[in-house]
């Protein structure tokens, strides 16, 4: 990635944003009087604000980057992560689960688990969650520091005697410092407010990029037309290995390729894994049990507001594919049009390798193309397009090219794509100074709020579910308020440590994310049984959860995705089954872990006696809680009504892009 030239107007927008988030923290600090103000916003925020924060906490920068990448790799089917993998679960959370979360007065998801089951389940969930949030925030801030190091022209080289700070370190500490200031000042409310600000930044910062991209590709229909050619021969754009071909609608239809089977869609998944694995287990497990998002709804000012929070969030979520996935599709379409002179950036190659490769091109003998290709390939150290190298060598032999021309030729012949840089490459391509600053600020905003969101979830769980529960129960509120602040600082420091860890060991981060996958996959089974079956016991839930986690690890150890070598990616004990893609492996793993957890919780609950009486479970279990009567609120605000309308709209979207 080459540094971007930013003008004064870009810097002004960037600084204005930073000034505003710090200002918000400052304004809010006057209202922070108790631990509840700081950690739970004292349940005081209007619905549209919690709703947008709810969706914004999920729409991190990594999601933004990742969805554009998937849009290029898989096309419109990526929208299933929204239409199948989010909307139904969000509606379920609003209509069925929020009454228990909000009504139970629990301050966190682990605390609900303690009320419903017992301390063991809470401890297991809160420790796993605390570790997970710290790593998630570290990953986010590491990505931001790396991005800024590559993008901004300033190089830092600061020496403080015993400490030496390079560019990466400086950006990491500055950004973490900004987050620390506004979270420490305004607590959860600060995080929620900046998430709303970030929501508008992202929507308003990226919409013009999508518009210009579509205009350049010749409009929606022209883009789809180009993508049909891409689907028939994806290897031409290095999207797949040579020889793989799909039906023309593989990139432009959401359901037809999936229904045709794993060999007929670029994701390599089947409809059952898609609907049960993604649409049910993974999706409900994330949206309905992850405290990071649920916390936003818990901060709402009353029960109706809390229940409507996920519904407000579902509206933009449904239309996000046009903002985040379409850029990837535009990129793939543009790459297939030779006159647009665009390619998805290849992985970064060091200048030294380019120099060697340029020398190899100059020294090559056009009469022996195979040797020339081999020499250039070794020098570059990447997979290369043989034909392009051959014609480059021939052009150089025919009439001398400049080094810059050869370098451009080499760049174009690297047969690998760095999908994660799709979104940034489009921003660079279309944004003049001014708009560029807006788009980059939107990206920066979402990285920082990714950190803030995780830190505010971390400090609540740590303070209430670990510190207050096990280390220092029964202290004054002032004590927990100050503890919350100290934990916030601790959370930021741990995030920075995780960022350095992520920078050092990419592989280790993959393993950690894998382990989180194991921990989260079965969780929804515990909640489902806990909320809707009063016989579920603490022992049943605890053992069921443990077996669920164990079974997902075992499942991973015994299966592998096509094209992966046994090891970190699975199959480290023995390969019993091979999936067509990693995505299919993940979906099936989730489905398996859920089933195991569900079965064990059910069986062991039947075999053990519940420690809780019906009176204890009132407000926590469906059958023992008085139904909420919605007669006093207008029809269009009733969660069940709004939920059904949203489901219908979502269905229509699916049919349009079928």
């Amino acid at each position, binding site marked *: 990635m080459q540094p971007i030239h930013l003008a004064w*107007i870009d810097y*002004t927008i960037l600084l*204005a944003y930073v000034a505003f988030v710090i200002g918000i923290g400052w304004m*809010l600090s006057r209202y922070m009087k108790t631990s509840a103000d700081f950690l739970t*916003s004292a349940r005081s925020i209007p619905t549209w604000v919690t709703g947008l924060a709810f969706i914004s906490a999920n729409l991190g920068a990594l999601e933004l980057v990742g969805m554009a990448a998937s849009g290029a790799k898989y096309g419109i089917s990526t929208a299933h992560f929204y239409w199948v993998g989010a909307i139904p679960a969000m509606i379920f959370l609003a209509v069925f689960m929020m009454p228990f979360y909000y009504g139970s007065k629990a301050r966190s998801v682990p605390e609900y688990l303690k009320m419903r089951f017992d301390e063991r389940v809470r401890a297991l969930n809160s420790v796993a969650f605390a570790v997970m949030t710290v790593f998630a925030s570290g990953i986010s801030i590491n990505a931001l520091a790396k991005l800024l190091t590559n993008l901004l022209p300033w190089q830092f080289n600061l020496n403080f005697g015993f400490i030496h700070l390079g560019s990466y370190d400086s950006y990491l500490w500055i950004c973490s410092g900004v987050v620390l200031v506004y979270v420490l000042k305004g607590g959860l409310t600060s995080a929620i407010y900046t998430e709303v*600000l970030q929501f508008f930044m992202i929507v308003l910062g990226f919409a013009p990029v999508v518009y210009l991209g579509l205009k350049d590709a010749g409009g929606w229909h022209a883009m789809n037309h180009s993508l049909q050619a891409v689907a028939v021969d994806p290897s031409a754009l290095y999207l797949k290995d040579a020889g793989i071909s799909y039906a023309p609608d593989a990139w432009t239809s959401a359901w037809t390729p999936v229904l045709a089977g794993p060999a007929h869609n670029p994701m390599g998944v089947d409809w059952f894994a898609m609907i049960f694995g993604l649409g049910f287990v993974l999706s409900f497990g994330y949206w309905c049990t992850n405290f990071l998002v649920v916390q936003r709804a818990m901060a709402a000012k009353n029960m109706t507001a809390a229940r409507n929070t996920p519904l407000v969030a579902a509206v933009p979520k449904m239309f996000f594919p046009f903002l985040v996935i379409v850029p990837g599709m535009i990129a793939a379409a543009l790459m297939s049009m030779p006159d647009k002179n665009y390619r998805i950036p290849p992985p970064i190659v060091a200048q030294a390798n380019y120099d060697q490769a340029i020398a190899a091109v100059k020294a090559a003998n056009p009469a022996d193309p195979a040797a020339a290709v081999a020499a250039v390939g070794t020098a570059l150290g990447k997979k290369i397009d043989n034909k392009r190298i051959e014609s480059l060598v021939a052009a150089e032999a025919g009439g001398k090219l400049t080094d810059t021309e050869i370098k451009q030729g080499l760049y174009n012949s690297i047969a690998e794509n760095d999908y994660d840089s799709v979104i940034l490459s489009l921003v660079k391509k279309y944004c*003049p100074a001014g*708009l560029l600053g807006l788009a980059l600020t939107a990206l920066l905003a979402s990285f920082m709020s990714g950190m803030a969101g995780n830190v505010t979830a971390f400090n609540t769980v740590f303070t209430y579910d670990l510190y207050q529960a096990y280390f220092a129960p029964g202290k004054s509120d002032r004590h927990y308020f100050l503890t919350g602040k100290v934990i916030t600082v601790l959370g930021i420091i741990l995030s920075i440590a995780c960022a350095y860890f992520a920078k050092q060991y990419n592989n280790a981060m993959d393993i950690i994310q894998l382990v989180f996958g194991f921990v989260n996959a079965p969780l929804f089974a515990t909640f489902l049984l806990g909320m809707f079956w009063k016989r579920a016991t603490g022992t049943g839930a605890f053992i069921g959860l443990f077996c669920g986690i164990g079974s997902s690890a075992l499942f991973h150890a015994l299966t592998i995705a096509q094209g992966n070598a046994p090891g970190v990616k699975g199959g480290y004990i023995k390969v019993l089954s091979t999936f067509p893609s990693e995505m299919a492996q993940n979906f099936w793993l989730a489905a398996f872990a859920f089933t195991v957890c569900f079965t064990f919780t059910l069986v062991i609950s039947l075999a053990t006696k519940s420690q809780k009486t019906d009176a204890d479970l009132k407000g926590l279990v469906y059958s023992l809680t008085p139904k909420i009567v919605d007669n006093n609120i207008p029809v269009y605000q009733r969660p069940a009504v709004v939920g059904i309308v949203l489901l219908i709209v979502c269905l229509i979207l699916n049919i349009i892009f079928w």
Partner: protein
Amino acid sequence: MGLDIRWPIGLMFTLIGALLAINGALVKSDHAISLGVNINLIWGIVLLVFGVFMLLGAIKGGKNPPKA
């Protein structure tokens, strides 16, 4: 919470929108990069309208501008 979030959102987008629009209107630059569209001017106006809309909402909401 005492601070109506429409204040910071409104102020920020009014500011950024005005900045973009003025830049688009006054600075003679090559619009080739944005396909011949003066996107700064157009989008600046969109942001400005959004920002003002938010500010109006905040004013109607009844809370006075928070004092620092």
